[in-house]
Structures are given as C-alpha cells and as structure tokens.
C-alpha cells in the first residue's frame, strides 16, 4: 500500500507540470511522449525534464539519423544547393514525420530559397506538432516571423516574434 501511494505521489508530481499523456493514446504512448519522434532506441531519450513547475512537458530532439541528415542539409544550404538540401531534409522527414524540428529546418531552406510562403506554411505545420514544447514552438514562431518579413508583412511578423519571445526570450 505504501508503495502504491509512493508511486501515485511521484506520478502526480511529474504530471503536475503538464500532461504527458493524451488519454486516447494507447498505454505504450507515454514512453514516446518524452521523445516523441525519436525512433525506438535511435538516440538515448532526451533527459527527462526535472519535475519542476517550469520544466517543459516535452522536448523534441532529433534522432541520430535525422540529425545526421540535418547536418548534411546545412552543408548543402551553405553551398547554395537548396534542391539537394530539400531532398536531404525530406529524407529526415520520412524518418521523423511528426518532429516539428524537421519541419522547421525544411521551412528554413524554403525561406532561404526564396519561397517564403512555404516557409510560413511549414512554420505553422511545425507549430501544430510542437504542442507542449515551448522551445520548438518558439522556433516555429521565429520561422513564421522571418517568412512574414520576407513577404513584407512586418506587422504580422512582429506579432509572431512576440509569440516566440513570450515562449523563449530571444
């Protein structure tokens, strides 16, 4: 009985910060929720956030495959080869389709290639996936803000920047 209470207490503490569980998910989901998109054993799970009220509920990381591809894509972007960078990031996306960080990378390349509307859309797509992860949400808002600036929509851009700053100060 003491054990049960202890377990319950621990669980309440962890959960108090923010929901880890979406109740419709199968019981196996919680383990995935802490490293939502990493393929099983792809990378050591992101260090569990300490159970303090300010800790984020989720922190998206890239698995080792996707991060290698992102590194490769950065090199290709730096060389100005946007189509190749896009192709590389699409590989990462096929491996981790629900990881907002990949969408943000893809949106960044689109923006650099002069396709700000796609940058904007991908920022919003990432934002939808980043629920519960302020770091990823903030990065998505920054992508949206930069895409809006590129389209000359400065007022909306500053509002998007404000969202980003409110989550994670720049």
């Amino acid at each position, binding site marked *: 009985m003491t054990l*049960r209470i202890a*377990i*319950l207490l621990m*669980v*309440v503490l962890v*959960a*108090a910060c*923010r*929901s*880890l*569980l*979406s*109740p*419709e*998910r*199968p*019981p*196996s*989901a919680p383990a*995935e929720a802490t490293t939502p998109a*990493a*393929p*099983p*054993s*792809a990378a050591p799970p992101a260090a569990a956030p300490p159970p303090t009220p300010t800790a984020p509920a989720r922190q998206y990381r890239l*698995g*080792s*495959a*996707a*991060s*290698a*591809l992102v590194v490769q894509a950065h090199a290709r972007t730096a060389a100005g080869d946007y*189509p*190749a960078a*896009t*192709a*590389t990031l*699409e*590989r990462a*996306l*096929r*491996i981790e*389709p*629900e990881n907002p960080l990949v969408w943000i990378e*893809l949106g960044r390349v689109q923006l650099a290639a002069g396709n700000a509307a*796609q940058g904007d*859309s*991908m920022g*919003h*797509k990432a934002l*939808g*996936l980043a*629920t*519960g992860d302020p770091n990823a949400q903030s990065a998505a808002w920054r992508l949206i803000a930069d895409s809006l600036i590129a389209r000359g929509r400065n007022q909306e851009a500053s509002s998007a920047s404000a969202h980003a700053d409110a989550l994670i100060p720049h």
Partner: protein
Amino acid sequence: MARRPRKIRRRRLLWGSALGLLILFITGSAIYIYYVDRSVTLQFQGRRWTLPAQVYAAPLELYVGAPLSMTDLLAELARLQYRPAAKLDRPGSYHREDERIDIALRAARFADEMRPAQMLTVVAGARSIEALRDASGHDIPVLRLDPLLIGSIFPTHGEDRIVVTPADVPALLPAALKAVEDRKFDSHHGVDPEAVIRALWVDLRSHQIAQGGSTLTQQLVKSYFLDSRQTMGRKLHEALMAMALEAHFSKSDLMNAYINEIYLGQDGDRAVHGFGLASQFYFGKPLGELDLAELSLLVALVRGPSYYDPRHHPERALARRDLVLKLMADLKVVSPEDAASAARRPLGVTTRAAGAYYPSYLDFVRRTLRRDYPDTDLTQEGLKIFTSLEPRAQDEAEQTLDRELARLERSRAATTASLDGAVVLTAPASGDVIAIVGGRRIGYSGFNRALDAARPMGSVVKPFVYLTALETHRYTPASIVQDAPVDIRMSNGTHWRPLNFTRQIYGPVPLVRALAESMNLATVAVGMDVGVTHVAQTLQRFGLERAPAQVPSLLLGAVNATPLEVAQLYTGLANGGYRMPLRAVRSVLSASGAPLKAFPLQLTPIADPEVVFEVDEMLQQVIERGTGRAARSVLPRDVVVVGKSGTTQDLRDSWFAGFSGSHLAVVWVGYDDNRPTGFTGAAAALAIWSRVLADLGTSSWSAAMPESLNEVSIDYFTGLQIEGTCANSDTIRIGVPPSTQLAKKPGCIAAAAPSAAGRLVERLRAIIHQ
C-alpha cells in the same frame, strides 16, 4: 556473203552492249557501294541509341531504430538481386550470420548524390535495426540501399535498352559471343565466306534460309539498319554494309555496339535490346555481376529470344545454354571444369520480368511526367526518374487485394472471379504515393482503377460534410443532431427521401456518433443546415478537381471520385488541414546525372488544425465503435487508426479510406460493369484496408490535440457530459472548443475537472489493481 558483215556487226553490237552494260554495272555498283559506305558510316558514326527513361523506386532507408526486421532486409536484398555468398568478393553480395549481415553494396546513383560501392554491416533484431557500421567498424547514422529499377518509359512499340560501356561488360561476354556466333570475328572483314558457304550448304539441303553464317557485324547491321526479312538481295546488301562498317570502325567499337543493339527478348509491347537491359530483364542485376551460367544463357538467347525464352521454354533454354558452355570449353574460353559446374546450375531467371512489376504505378509516373515532358524526352533521352514507390508496400497491397477479393468471392460463392478493386497507399506526412494497385491482375497494364475508376464516393464524403459544419462554429463533435426522416422537395418537383442503411431512425444523437455510424438522415440534416454549396466548396478546397453537382444527394456521396482523388482529399485530414499534392515522382535527372526537375513537398493551408483534429477524432470512433469496428480484430490493439467506410446505392461500390500515423490508404471494391457487389464498405474494402495496414506494421495516429481545444468526456450514445463516477465503457473523450456548453449526465458525482494528472492517476490505479 553479205550476211557475214551483218553477223560481225551483230557480234560487235552484242559485245558493245555487253561492255556498256558492264561499264554501267561497274559504275552502278561503285555508286551503290559508295552510297552504302557513306550512309552506313554516317549513320553509325552519329549513332545514338534512343534511351527510354529509367524509373526507380524509393531506396530503403537504414538507420538504427528503422522498423525493419532481418526478414524485411533479406526480402529487400532479394528484390535488389543481391546474392548470398560465403565471401564478399564483389558488390551485389551479402553474408548473413544470425542477426548480423555484411553487405557488399553496389555503387548507386540517387537523386541527390552518387554512392560508391562500399561495405556495410547491419545488425537487425526482430522488429528494428539495431546497428549500422561501415567496413572499419564505425557507426553510420543513416544509409540508403540501392534504389530498385522498376521499369522504363519506352515508345509504344519501341525498343527498350540500358546502354553499357566496355567497362561495364565482363570480358567473358565478347569471348563467348565470338565462340558461339562468329569465331573469326577478330580477323574477318565483315563477312566470313567460309561460314557463308557452310550456311548456304545447310540452307540448300533444308530448302530454306535458316539463320547462321552471319558474322557479328552482319547481325549488327541487320538489327541496326534493316528489318528482319531475309532475302538474297538483302543478304548481299547486308554483307556490303558489314564490310563498310569494318572498314571504318574498330573491332572493339563494333563489339560494343553489338552488345547494346542486339534483340534479346520481348515483354508485351516492349522489345528488350542489348545485354545491359537483358541482364536486368532476366536476372534483375547489372551485367557485371552475372556469373558464367547466367552470361551463357544470355548468349544462348541471341539465336532466338522467343524460341529459347527461359521463362516460357526453360528446357530449350537450358539445352541451348549448355551448348554455349560446351562451345566455350571446346574453344578454351573457359576451362572444362568451369563449364561443367556452370552447366549444373539452374537457369536462375527471376520469376517476373523487371519493369513489368508495377504497371499501375508506372502508369501514374508516366501521367505525372507528361505534364512536364514531351513523349520523345521520356522515351529517348535516358532520363533517370526517382519515385516514391515502396516495393514492400506495393507487394503487400497487391497480394492483400487479390487474397481478400478471392476470400470475399468464396464467401458469396460467386461464380465468376471478376470482383475487382484498387488500392492507393501514401505516406501522409510527405504526400508520397508509395503504392498503387490498379486492379486484381498484378503485372497487367490494363484498366487502372486506382486512377481511372471514378465512382460515387458514398459515405467516404461524410467527413467533409461534418468538417464544413464544424467550421461554422455552430457545431462541435458533441453537438446533438436529429436523425429523423428527411423529405426534400427538389427543383423539378420530385421528393428526395433518403433512408439510413439500417432502415432505422436514431433520433437525437451526438455528431460524433452520427459520423461513426454513418447515419444518412443526421448527415443530410447537418449538411442542409450548413449548405450544400459550402460542402462542395470544402471538397474542392481539399483537392477535388471537378466541381461537384450541388444537389442534396452530394451530402451522401453522389459525387464521383477515383481512389487516387479520395486519397488526395483525405491527405488534408491526415495532415492537420494542409493540402499536399500527392507525389509519385520526386526528381528527374538527365542521362548524365544533372538534376532537371524536383517535385518538392508543398503545403497549402486549407482548414483550421482544430477543426481537422475534431474530425479525425470522430473518425477514430468509426474504428472504435462505428462501421469500421471490424478493423480492430485485424490491427494490433494499441494501434490507433482513423477512417471512414463508404457504400453506394445497391452496394455497387465498397470504399474505405483512412489513415494511421505513417500510412494513408484508400480501398475501392466493385465490378467494372457497375453490378451490385453485395458488400458494404465495411464488409469488403475495410477488410483489405485493415489487412494492408496491419501487414505494413503501421504506426498509431497520434496527432497532438491543439492547445485551443478542451478535452471532455461524453457518453457516446447520448452526448451527455460524463463526470467522475459515471464513466463507463460508453464514455469517450474528445476535444471540443473551450466555449462548448454540454448538458451533464444527471446523478454523477463530479470529480475534479478531468485534468491530465487526474487521468494519469486513474490509469495508474487501474494498472496497479490489475
């Protein structure tokens, strides 16, 4: 006496004309020879084989954690025609020991880079890849296997070939060709008089012109410049042309041309030319990897690709191959031991011809490309086309469709096996079309139902009716709607009185249940309330290209769509409200490998993510409690999927469309002549749909609930809000807008608001008490 001079005159005249004729003949021949020489040389010098575009499947990505078992990996290596070997001496082989497999990868070209041949070690567990290392034992984060060549785009009645350079050709092949077809190739000047006389003798004795006696050069001429009719005049012409070629080109040039030119097989409309393609066509691997037995078979085919067709006449092919081996041993091209051991090998041809594998998918590729490229570019320029096809998924979908249709027919004791169907499979996050099955006859390039069978959508249209309703913000998934008799007076004075499929009337029901159980009357009530026009607009926004007729029956699916179009519509639902053009082609490279065109992923926002999430959650109840329940017995318990069944009038069409986290699938089942099938969407299409997803090891649909929604518990049957102690097996949790006011089920002792923590505690308590 007077006669003699006349005689002399006559004789002179005769001689004169003979001389004239001779001069004429010599001049004529000279002109003819000059003409032949010029034209042959010019044509041959500027020769350029028309190169059909080559089409590749998506390469399999390997990384630690990739959901691939050793079995999957071996199946893929088999598709790529890698051979098991004790020692990894050449690219294209592998060695397996328990969970570890060493692979000598071939060099491969991808859309974005070349990969040299290299060694790879993979450790694969029961479900996923556990390690990936290079030759020196260093971990590799991610690596692609070779992209599978799935076919080419050749002219309608045309030649298909893969051109090889001398470097790609094993030295044994020219040696074998010379031994079997033309022993004096290295020394003759285009014709071999001895061989001609020998052949002529045989011809005379058999009173017909048989093959033989032609040098390789003559065979090349015949194939390259002439058609196949054999007459004496033509033979002479051919001999002249061969001599002309010999005078101007080196032996190695001619040998290489021969290897690329010669006809080696037929595949429907497609003529297989050259040893490069023949190697792929019969063995599924590059020419350089063929062993002695395999090479000998190809050499054997030169004499008569249809007579010796190893797939249709294996015994003839085997006898001829062994004759080739014997000739090679006799002429000391190979040792007698090698020839004998090769003669003990089976033919080893692949069961299905490469390139005929996936005609439905290639059909879609061709249609996609025709928007951007003229036919001549596709059939002649040697383009390399990289597609999204996943061979494993395609094989799975083809087999499942056929197996399940056969089962359904047995269940109805159908007399004819003509029930048909189509499957479209996509990866919803990227819009990649990963498989297309256009019908039951696999490998048959006939009517492509996935692309061309535009049939009434039936109830698979309903999610878009409900989505339109939610967009008005006057409805939530928990809203109560009336499932009551409908009577709509049409503009022509008639009345439309639809019924529920069950013929029952359900009265007040929550929106979620109306959709889950596909209630027609409730759907019409909702749809008429929000407006048929708006529903039509929603469909177009999600990608329906033709404007649907704006009639009330649209609400029940009186709008035609192909399985591919339904897949496009559902992509928006699977993607949180973004439209993404479905892609078969990722990129196109020129023959030299320069990127010509890419089809990058593109997102267009078309609906609020909140609204789409609400629809998806309702569709989840289709599977949990509604018309899609049968899927639960096929799919693993913990895998969440969403979808919608569709059945049209008199059970003519059976549909199921839906998605998981990793796959989106649309299945249609029906008869081509539109006869009633006797099956509902739930009975026929769903069985195929859930089996395909289960076999692919699909992952859960797990979209995060938008922060702007609130999760509530309601009673599935009444829509009343459930709190605390009242929760039972009829309670479902769904997201609704925070402003939603719900009637509460009376008599419940309200617990604390259902916070995440509370739910977790409850769940843990349940686990501990188990």
